[in-house]
């Protein structure tokens, strides 16, 4: 099984890597945001803490980048393959579905790690962000682990949308939600109505994990954030499994 997994993962990686709309955007957009928004005020210290805006924004963009990779790489690739009927052909091959799934997960994690490998040095060099080694590490592992619910969300979107609508759906929902979750500027600067909703958004809870890792002040405890994410994870997985089963019974029964 291992040679098959290695080959399949390599193929899945190339499939995404060779699409600049995905690979370049995933790797470069967070840096572009950081350059425009983060660098200018990088050394400013946030009210009521000793954390710089540069560090806060690094955490935000790490969360943004990784959740983005998960949703896009699963959402769009699943929707596109369904649209192109690639799923029919793959179904007729002896490739075990588990290998297929694992290869995609590994690819997504590799891409997510790549975005951090680009973002972290950029924040260090251009934003002058200085953190303890432990903080860098905590930020990285929390961001990777906390992205799991977004894998499920990506799958759910992929099975529920068509190939054209998937891109639209994700783009229309993702960026505004990122704003509403306080990823681009602290929650306090958002309109009151949105401030009331943000604590319930999964990206907000995800963001909290990151901000806490760099030492920025957060409401409630990290455990609460994890609980929210786990809860969202369960809901997204349930939706993804339901959508997958619906697809099975329509196409393959």
């Amino acid at each position, binding site marked *: 099984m291992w*040679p*098959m997994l290695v*080959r*399949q993962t390599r*193929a899945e990686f*190339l*499939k995404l890597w*060779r*699409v600049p709309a995905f690979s370049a955007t995933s790797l470069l957009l967070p840096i572009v945001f950081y350059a425009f928004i983060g660098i200018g005020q990088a050394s400013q210290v946030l009210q009521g803490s000793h954390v710089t805006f540069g560090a806060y924004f690094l955490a935000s963009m790490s969360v943004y980048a990784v959740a983005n990779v998960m949703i896009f790489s699963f959402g769009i690739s699943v929707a596109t*393959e369904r649209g*192109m*009927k*690639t*799923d*029919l*052909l793959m*179904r*007729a*091959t*002896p*490739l*075990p579905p588990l290998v297929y799934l694992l290869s995609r997960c590994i690819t997504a994690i590799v891409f997510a790690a790549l975005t951090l490998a680009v973002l972290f040095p950029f924040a260090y060099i251009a934003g002058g962000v200085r953190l303890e080694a432990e903080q860098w590490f905590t930020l990285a592992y929390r961001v990777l682990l906390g992205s799991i619910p977004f894998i499920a969300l990506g799958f759910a979107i992929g099975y529920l949308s068509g190939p054209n609508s998937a891109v639209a759906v994700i783009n229309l929902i993702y960026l505004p939600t990122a704003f509403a979750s306080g990823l681009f500027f602290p929650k306090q600067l958002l309109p009151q109505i949105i401030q009331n909703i943000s604590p319930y958004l999964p990206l907000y809870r995800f963001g909290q994990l990151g901000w806490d890792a760099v030492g920025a002040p957060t409401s409630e405890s990290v455990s609460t954030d994890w609980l929210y994410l786990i809860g969202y994870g369960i809901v997204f997985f349930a939706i993804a499994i339901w959508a997958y089963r619906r697809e099975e019974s329509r196409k*393959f*029964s």
Partner: protein
Amino acid sequence: MTAAAQLIDATKKYGSVEALKGVRLDIELGDVVAMLGPNGAGKTTSISLLLGLRKPTSGKALLFGMDPTNVLARSRVGVMLQESGVPQMLKVSEIVDLFRSYYPNPLPRDRAIAMAGLEEKANSLVKELSGGQRQRLYFALAVCGNPDVLFLDEPTVGMDVEGRRSFIERIAEFAHMGKTVVLTTHYLEEADQLARRVIVIDRGVVIADAPPAEIKSKVAGKRVRFVAPAVDEKVLQGLPVSAVTIKDGSVQLLTNQPEAVLRALFQRGVEISELEVSGADLEDAFIALTQH
């Protein structure tokens, strides 16, 4: 003899539509079979059941005596589907290699690519292939695993005459390797050229299952065609004809006594032009069998 693929009293309903009605099919190893039928006859449904892509509503589908979704069964089978897709951003050589890795004893990569005539395109991305080249890629993917049984569902649809001709040669080459081939088509020449056994299927039921020559002999031997404006079936009453089609003054029929039929038509005062008398081929047999 082991049955390579079987349908045992297989019925398939999509909602209220019965696509297959209690079909019995046995394909032995080494068979070269063409499933012939008009659109909607149940050809693709039969293949889907045999490949485990769909489950029968009742009855059974077996591949090498196993459930078709079994990985062991699937690893002996190569498939070219009517509705199919491949990742656009991989090279031809990469995707052939990928599919080869799914099978226990694949063909060498270059051999599979050569069998499909894609040597020049081996390093091109899939998205750079033309329609015909993409069909050939699907063929390469179907044979690269060196399967015992090759399923091809309408493989030459959309190809021009030359493309179809050379494609049939490729399929024949594969069949000559001693493999089992199951081909569905509505192109009668393909069935005639390739198959040692023709299964005619219409409206979910098998209506004939025999070598091509035998099927041709089941229907009257000569095809008569002519143009006669303002003519209808009455003018052929009592004559030994079958499979009569009359359209815009063009008449076509099958008969074993073409001379007698023509004599009768002249006696009945029918004005005929553009007369053609030829041997009935599989197309005529097919029309005769599926006409309602």
